[in-house]
């Protein structure tokens, strides 16, 4: 039995934690929360110098060719620190989409630049306040030109290119397309979200040039495969954030006195923190399994990814929400950092689709496995 990260992977974690403690401190995160910059460009540059963007990109495409376990380790630390960068959009979604479906030419064009930290990508899927389905997908491609509106697109305001899901036939048929966001027919507007530390946009496409990514008509299955892979990586970000929330709650409860004693000595608080811990450990074990399945490209990935996503989304939200509660009145002030995780927990819980939907997917996949 060897169900844990290796010594090398653990030292990578330490290295990442140290780097982010300095370069993605709460002060730095708050600069993005309160300022006009959409992301921390200096931090992004530093992450590029550390070689993180190329972690799972093969060496033949300019990456470091480590693998997904290493990427999971980095993701957990990014989540812990709340690093305000377009890493998830670029690496877990855009780069993965190209690795999954791109032609050699597309890989050659984008992957080396992504690995160097010189290109930012994003995934343009959602079209408004409802779940995206074949029945309601309005964005369409015709003769190599795409038209429609995508909202919200994480990092859509800063990305160089987007992977766009658009109808390419009748009856809800769709395909994936690469769109140069600096080209003609693209209008981007920043959109406010519950988490201003991560920038989002509305992208209006009016006959923008669209290059097919993968086979025509395969958009939905490709998106499903893409989201499975991203679900595992985001689960590690959520895990890091959940653990940070528990750590904050613990520290505050130990230092805060009421009724003549530490509030951490009251069972109402102790049991709340114990429940946070249980949720996090269940999520951690499910995420590790997802990491294993992702790294081996195992047939278990669809089930493992759904379980990891459900467990991590719920554990992070629970930990972030109860962290505010433990902090009492200070917990809902702008000044304390509790809200940073509360915002990020809800954002990451929805960015690849809600836990509600992933639970349904999970049972569908278990049924398929049992049939």
């Amino acid at each position, binding site marked *: *039995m*060897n*169900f*844990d*990260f*290796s010594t090398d992977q653990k030292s990578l974690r330490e290295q990442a934690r140290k780097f982010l403690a300095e370069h993605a401190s709460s002060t730095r995160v708050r600069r993005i929360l309160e300022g006009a910059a959409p992301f921390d460009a200096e931090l992004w540059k530093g992450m590029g110098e550390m070689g993180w963007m190329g972690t799972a990109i093969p060496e033949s495409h300019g990456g470091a060719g480590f693998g997904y*376990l290493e990427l999971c380790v980095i993701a957990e630390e990014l989540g812990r620190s709340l690093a305000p960068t377009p890493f998830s959009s670029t690496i877990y979604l855009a780069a993965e989409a190209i690795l999954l479906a791109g032609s050699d030419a597309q890989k050659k064009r984008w992957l080396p630049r992504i690995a160097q930290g010189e290109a930012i990508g994003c995934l343009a899927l959602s079209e408004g306040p409802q779940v995206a389905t074949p029945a309601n997908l309005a964005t369409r491609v015709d003769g190599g030109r795409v038209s429609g509106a995508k909202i919200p697109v994480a990092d859509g305001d800063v990305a160089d290119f987007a992977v766009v899901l658009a109808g390419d036939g009748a009856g809800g048929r769709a395909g994936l397309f690469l769109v140069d966001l600096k080209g003609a027919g693209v209008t981007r507007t920043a959109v406010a979200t519950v988490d201003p530390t991560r920038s989002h946009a509305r992208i209006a496409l009016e006959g923008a040039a669209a290059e097919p990514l993968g086979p025509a008509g395969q958009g939905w299955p490709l998106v499903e495969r893409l989201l499975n892979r991203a679900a595992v990586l985001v689960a590690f970000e959520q895990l890091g954030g959940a653990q940070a929330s*528990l750590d904050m709650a*613990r520290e505050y*409860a*130990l230092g805060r006195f009421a009724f003549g*004693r*530490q509030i*951490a*000595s009251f*069972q109402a*608080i*102790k*049991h709340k*923190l*114990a*429940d946070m*811990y*249980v949720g996090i*450990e*269940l*999520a*951690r*074990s*499910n995420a*590790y*399994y997802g*990491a*294993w399945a992702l*790294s081996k490209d195992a047939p278990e990935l669809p089930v493992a990814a*759904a*379980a990891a996503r*459900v*467990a991590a989304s719920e554990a992070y939200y629970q930990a972030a929400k109860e962290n505010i509660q433990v902090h009492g009145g200070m917990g809902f002030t702008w000044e304390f950092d509790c809200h940073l995780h509360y915002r990020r927990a809800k954002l990451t819980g929805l960015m690849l689709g809600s836990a*509600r939907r*992933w*639970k*349904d997917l*999970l*049972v569908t996949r*278990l*049924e398929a496995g*049992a049939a």
Partner: protein
Amino acid sequence: MDFEDTREEAAFRAEVRQWLGAHAEPKGRAFETWQSRYAGREGYDGLERAQAFQRKKAEAGFAALHWPTEWGGRALPPIYQVIYAQEESRYLVPRGYFEIGLGMCMPTLFAYGTEEQKRRYAPAALRGDEVWCQLFSEPGAGSDLAGLRTRAQRDGDDWVINGQKIWTSGAHWADWAILVARSDPKTAKHKGLTFFFLSMKSPGIETRRIKQISGASHFNEVYFTDVRIPDAQRLGAVGAGWGVAITTLMNERLTSGDLRGPDFEEIFGLARTTALEDGPAIANAAVRERLADLYVKTQGVRLTRFRTMTALSRGETPGPENSIGKLVNAPKAQEIASFAMDLLDMGGVVMDKDAAPLRAAFQESLLSSPGGRIAAGTDEILRNIIAERVLGLPQDVRVDRDLPFDQLPTGSR
């Protein structure tokens, strides 16, 4: 990251598989037990069958893998015990007779007994010739074990025991027992305890079965009237019984176990084969959401155990994560039972084995699962343990810590 055994572990697993294949009967379904198939049948006495199997297991060297070789063990790291248990769990082996003796009593004897005592008791316990039980809990001392009141009074070379124990598994068939009793009620409660072992055949011991909600009787009350124990059977110093009891309980945490009853697989199967008002239960959104929640918890506990096994396999001390297992599994068993019965609607109440799905396993679990949330650490005590030992939070304010025991306030229950 993988789920493979090391070469040594794989060789051991193969040895275990071969041996079990030759000496034990495979299960029909995952949660079936020897008891659920054979209990009550003529010619199937559980204790006799268990002793016969235990003897073979001891001869094959599987009975106490982590014990020193001089006592019949193999001195193997704990991972091998886990591997053996994994393999044995696929078979119908009568369980519940020797776990306490081998897992808790003997380790305590190894730590505190004389060489002569170890020689006298360990081999007999290993072969299942002698069965042990543990006399700890009392009517007034459950979660707060150190509040126990059974008296031990010195009389020459003997101690005289008076009082009552409760929740003693197997007291009605045990030959020997470990006992913690109060030797000095004038001192603070943790300091006035002394630890012994004694014969369950001693004059003055009376054992009564306790009938549980489920109708089963796994536990006993044990009454002591002037029971005499030679001082030579004291383990640890006079007044040091609490420390000895902690040794015993640390071992309990390593042995306490799995969900015994329908689990995710069974509720998933039921949902796929049961019709609701709007079609198959598995197609109902509310049902699907709960199934997903149960799957995530089930996998979470299973995979957490793999993390613990990994630490053991690497020769490391497992992290605290394994403390979540029972806290998640015990309430989950109750939830699965109740949820399954809801799916069966009005028919869910039926407990006739021939008329209820899975021979009424869900209904039986409804009645047995509340005990799982209490035995071997209540949900609340487990949360305290996680809070204090894992998260490092302070203990509760203890009003009883430094008062003499006989001056502590008591209630009527």
